[in-house]
């Protein structure tokens, strides 16, 4: 059943095209088709996850051209997990957006599904140039979703976003060209084979290309000091767009992980482990900048943005360790921070629309409608995001701390991660206290009332937060699964053999 592998890419593209072709002016039907398609995507992703859980790497040769001459998609534990995560997030966000946001501009649903196509493609592709194409699909679709609803702040932030990311895209082309110039191939598995054999006189070009590629991914992952696009863009974006963007930074981290283990692994000669000296220090810097931003935030959405940045710092610390425990922790943290961060952005949206002219600013305002469920959800979301027990953020943090023990940077990781955690806790306690506790008497008709369909949207946030609890309760089986994925990722020979032919990877192959 390897034919399913291409579905997470083709289905959203076809759905988006269908929405444009047949339903471009019928929002109600768009919603039905869009939500159904998202659930279908989720079902496909679940199936792929089940398929990948046996530890076998499965290639999919698009156009039936053999690797490395055509484009190969690859389903392994890593890509299956992330496609599933994306599908779950997408289903939640699409339902939330159908609660009203999608009516504030044109083409929300088509662009959303095009984004899904790009994200899934980026996770599944086994070809560096194809990855570039999916990055472009994502970039332009996310740009459209970010501008959804219009307005000057969004345009300005959007320009910032797209300018920096296009710089990244240009650099991507440079990096890929350099790597192609010395290896003559674009297929990742083929690169893994050819790179150890690169001639010494070409080593410098290869290294430059490799590092520039990592820089591109680091821009996507919002790794400091390349993170500038994130805070403005996510804060200006509509709530549901920002929520779904939580997966996009993860793609940068995923790509770093993928190329670092597959292409620039220990056997890669001149480029072995080339990202390692850069990622960890930069991730610690990201933690610091993110935490400072959380404390400095004057609006809930700013806090959510910097909390997202901070979580990328944590995640990249784990990625930067580049060993089994680190990768496993990174996977757990990825799932956690995507869902929790998305919940926080949606909450910020719900809060903002209920506080009249105060929006989500941390200023004294009259009590809001549905204060009890919202404040309870905020409390839970803050606990999850800040990494306090008993939710998944805490376990994710402990997993990272545990994984960092062996690292030379271990003490720094512990000090910075725990220290910034305290700053984030402080920031969230101030925000929650200002938003929900420090109220002033209501003015007649000033506070925003709860809108219709609010129940549906609150429900979506509730589901996302419930997921962080489930992540925590089932952390045992999950970490076991992620350990297996990490082992698979660290033994790229299985990947290479699956793509380039030869014996299929044995299940549960360990290094």
């Amino acid at each position: 059943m390897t034919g399913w592998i291409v579905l997470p890419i083709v289905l959203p593209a076809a759905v988006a095209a269908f929405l444009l072709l047949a339903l471009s002016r019928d929002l109600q039907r768009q919603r039905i088709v869009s939500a159904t398609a998202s659930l279908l995507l989720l079902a496909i992703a679940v199936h792929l996850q089940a398929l990948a859980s046996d530890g076998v790497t499965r290639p999919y040769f698009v156009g039936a051209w053999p690797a490395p001459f055509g484009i190969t998609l690859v389903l392994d534990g890593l890509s299956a997990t992330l496609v599933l995560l994306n599908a779950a997030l997408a289903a939640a966000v699409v339902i939330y957006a159908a609660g009203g946001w999608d009516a504030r501009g044109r083409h929300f649903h088509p662009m959303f599904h095009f984004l899904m196509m790009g994200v899934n493609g980026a996770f599944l592709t086994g070809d560096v140039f194809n990855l570039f194409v999916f990055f472009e699909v994502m970039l332009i679709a996310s740009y459209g979703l970010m501008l959804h609803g219009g307005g000057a702040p969004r345009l300005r932030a959007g320009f910032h976003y797209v300018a920096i990311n296009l710089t990244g895209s240009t650099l991507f082309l440079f990096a890929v060209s350099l790597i192609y110039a010395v290896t003559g191939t674009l297929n990742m598995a083929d690169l893994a084979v050819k790179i150890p054999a690169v001639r010494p006189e070409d080593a410098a070009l290869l290294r430059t290309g490799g590092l520039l590629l990592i820089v591109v991914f680091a821009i996507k992952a919002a790794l400091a000091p390349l993170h500038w696009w994130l805070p403005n863009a996510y804060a200006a974006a509509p709530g549901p767009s920002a929520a779904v963007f939580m997966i996009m930074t993860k793609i940068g981290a995923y790509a770093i992980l993928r190329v670092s283990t597959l292409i620039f692994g220990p056997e890669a000669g001149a480029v072995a482990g080339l990202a390692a000296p850069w990622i960890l220090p930069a991730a610690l810097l990201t933690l610091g900048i993110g935490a400072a931003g959380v404390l400095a935030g004057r609006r809930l959405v700013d806090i959510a943005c910097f909390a997202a940045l901070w979580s990328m710092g944590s995640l990249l610390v784990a990625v930067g360790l580049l060993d089994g425990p680190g990768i496993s922790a990174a996977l757990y943290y990825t799932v956690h921070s995507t869902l929790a961060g998305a919940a926080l952005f949606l909450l910020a949206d719900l809060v903002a629309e209920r506080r009249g002219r105060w929006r989500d600013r941390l200023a004294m305002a009259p009590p809001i409608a549905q204060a009890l469920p919202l404040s309870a959800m905020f409390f839970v979301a803050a606990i999850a995001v800040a990494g306090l027990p008993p939710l998944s953020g805490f376990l994710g943090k402990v997993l990272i701390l545990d994984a960092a023990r062996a690292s030379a940077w271990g003490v720094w990781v512990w000090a910075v991660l725990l220290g910034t955690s305290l700053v984030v806790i402080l920031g969230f306690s101030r925000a929650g206290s200002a938003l929900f506790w420090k109220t002033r008497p209501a003015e007649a008709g000033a506070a925003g009332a709860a809108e219709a369909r609010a129940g549906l949207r609150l429900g979506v946030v509730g589901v996302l937060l419930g997921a962080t609890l489930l992540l925590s309760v089932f952390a045992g089986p999950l970490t076991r699964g992620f350990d297996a994925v990490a082992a698979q990722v660290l033994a790229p020979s299985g990947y290479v053999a699956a793509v380039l032919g030869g014996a299929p990877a044995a299940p549960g192959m360990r290094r």
Partner: protein
Amino acid sequence: MTLALIALIPLLGACLPPLTTRSSRTVTAWAAAAPTLLALLILAAQAPAVFGGEVVRTSAEWVPRIGLSFSFMLDGLGLFFAGLILGIGLLIIAYARHYLGRRDPIGRFYAYLLLFQGAMVGIVLSDNILLLVVFWELTSLSSFLLIGYWNHLPEGRQGARMALVVTGGGGLALLAGMLLLGQAAGSHELSEILARGEEVRASPLYMPALLLVLLGAFTKSAQFPFHFWLPHAMAAPTPVSAYLHSATMVKAGVFLLARLWPALAGTDAWFVLVSLTGLATMLVGAWIALFKDDLKAILAYSTVSHLGMMTMLLGFNTGIAVIAAVFHILNHATFKAALFMSAGIVDHETHTRDIRKLGGLYWLMPVTGTLALIAGASMAGVPLLNGFLSKEMMLDAAAEATLAGNGWVVATLATLAALLSVAYSARFVFGTFFGRPRTAFEHPPHEPPPGLWLPVAVLVVPVVAIGLLPGPLAGPIVEMTAAAVAGPAGLPPVKLTLWHGITPALVMSVAAFAGAALLLLLIHHVERARLRLWRPEAKAMFDATVAAAVAGARRLSGGLHTGSLPRDLGVIVLAILAVGLAGFLGATHAPGAREVQPTGIPALAAWVILVAACAGLAVAHRNRLLTLILTSVVGLIVSLAFLQFSAPDLAMTQISVEVVTTILLLLALNLLPKTTPAEPGTARKLRDGAIAAAAGLGAAALAFAAMTRDFETISTYHIEQSKPGGGGTNVVNVILVDFRGFDTFGEIIVLGIAALAIHALLATALRGAAARRLDAMRMGEVSGDAHPLMLVVATRVLLPLALTLAAYIFLRGHNQPGGGFIAGLIAAIALIMQYMASGHAWAAARARLQPLTMIGAGVLIAGLTGMGSWAFGRPFLTSTFGYFHLPIAGEVELASAMAFDLGVFLTVVGAVVLALSHIARVEQRAERSGHAPEDAALPPGPPTAAPRIGLRTPAYGRED
């Protein structure tokens, strides 16, 4: 799993009280009491086994990777604490039922209380140190909710945040400490760790683990210098103060010291750190308590002092001190909770807690007065009450402690603390209940309902009973608990008796009472002296620290995230340069071996033009039109270069893309000012120029290095397989639609989305504030003739020609230069010319195919072509081709890739026409002000979705 239930029942039971809020408050109280009672019964059922020396254990897996398991154990220490927590919890639930006002949401209160209770029981029953941390932080969180329960009060909010930050921060330290401890012991299971004390103390990780664990314990138990949060936590309703901040939660730190005693205690470091911190806390707390006027503040600082005493005792490293500590934990829980509840009754009845306004209440409320008197006397350490006994034992232990060779330092300071304790206890009781009434109460206070004083009475019973019969009543419990801490071997026989004879402790005790009497006589002088001393205001310092942190964070974050794109891009480019350079220098390099081709005159000319255009661009970039022209020069030279290097497809694509982008930008330019805003300063220009030049030179050098070397690529295969495998001789086209058709599929979607984004953006721009601004703008001169006849005629004549050309280029694409992409661009240019020449309305009215439909259809056709191969069991986009004989055309090759290319064609046409025609429409709109566009029928935007911000400020950081 029975053990786990003791913690889980209150945690899950927390849902019950809020469900009953429609019933009476008594029902709600019962809903809270029921889980507590149930948990207590389960605990009691386990008690006989524990008294019999057994340790009850249960374990379930949670996260084995980090050694976190759901394991619980019940030994003497756990039983002791769990009993205290649940027992006092019941009394507090009863008390709170009467204490809370009618307007307080009582369901929520009980829910928080049960959450806390479950978490606290979890701490004392955990057999896994990480599980312990989980519960530890849960108590911090539930305490946050309880302190902030009256969230309309600023003190409540601030106290809650302060407590959360201090204890939550301590929890983070504890987490680190526990991880290190686990590493040192090789296990995260407490029972294992406690058995490996030697190993732990010998480990190099002992010191850091000890420091971090102590940081956690000291913050939780309000030890100096972290004692400041506890008095501010008193903003909570009194039942909370009595329960969390006196009887239970603050004892968690002390509990932890006792729990880890076998693993961590016994070293000099432990003695110095723990006992001295405790001693300092004992003194500082007692001293401050003496001068407080708020009843709850007196009790809060007294609690700090007593917690210090317990800490000090545990720090002494001796079995006898452990017995004293355990005994005092029990005694303190009884008399202090009773005192808090009494203070709550006074507050409830008189509406003040200020001791300066109180007095003589004994005769108005004799029951409460008596109970408070007894409890207060116990706190002072008056004989025949339980507080006396544990104080004697403390003094005894202190008398034996030597610090740096001195046998009397600790003893003296402990006596001093006892003296202060007597003094503030006396002040508390006498100031409130005796003397003259100092306020004329509007409604004279009277005895509260029994619901309020009964729980106090229940607590005062053991105060007296244990005081009189310590051995039989408290002996077994204390012995069992102390044995669990220090181990049966390390423990002297527990003899709790009233009379020990004339011991040093008795002498110290007597001295304390005498000194306290003297102190109270001279209190006004002491007070005056104290006021002259420097008194650190912990709250102010904490607030100032937080304010400074917030201000610093704002400065840092605001300074970093200015929203200046040039700056951000500058940093990014610098990072790229640094990383790229480091990468290049980190490995070996040799110049390429390929011969450099001779430079011909045409190439030289093209190069000169290119450089001149770039230089001109840098100089004249403020003129937007000139910029556009110069940029297209660059594009043209690039397409010439493609031609030179035998890439006609690329050249054709490049030229058509150039045309389309130039039209697009020309349309956009019409809506923009003619020049760009002026830039500041030469220095910045030089800086930015230097960065740009470095990046440009770097890119050029890399390109040169790459182009001057030979290498083998996968393209060899593409060239070989183009005809036999892909059915076309134009390898570029076969790559585009077949080998890498998947890339093309993605790229046409990129184009389609870009058009959608433009469409959506302009659709919003045509309504609301942006539309009004557009109307007001009327940029530039209005053309004398909007639609010149010559142009109209020429474009209409050209249309069929251009479309035929597009069809030709499309059809030949598979074998000769051409293909769907180029054909699409040509067709789009032909169509867009109609829009430009004849106006949007004219063209749109005649367009049969809507551009949106074209995009959708194009993507769908390309996608369906790819899916078609599924019908034959082949992967997505597998192509097929065959030769057919058609009547007129003769032998014709048809490839499935052509259908794919048709999708490409349609998407390209749709995307370009959609984007360009809408920009043209916006322009039209600007020309014909006041006319509502047809698309304006969209639903109105959100009222405040896009806060209006001045043009010069970035979106971030402005709205404060």
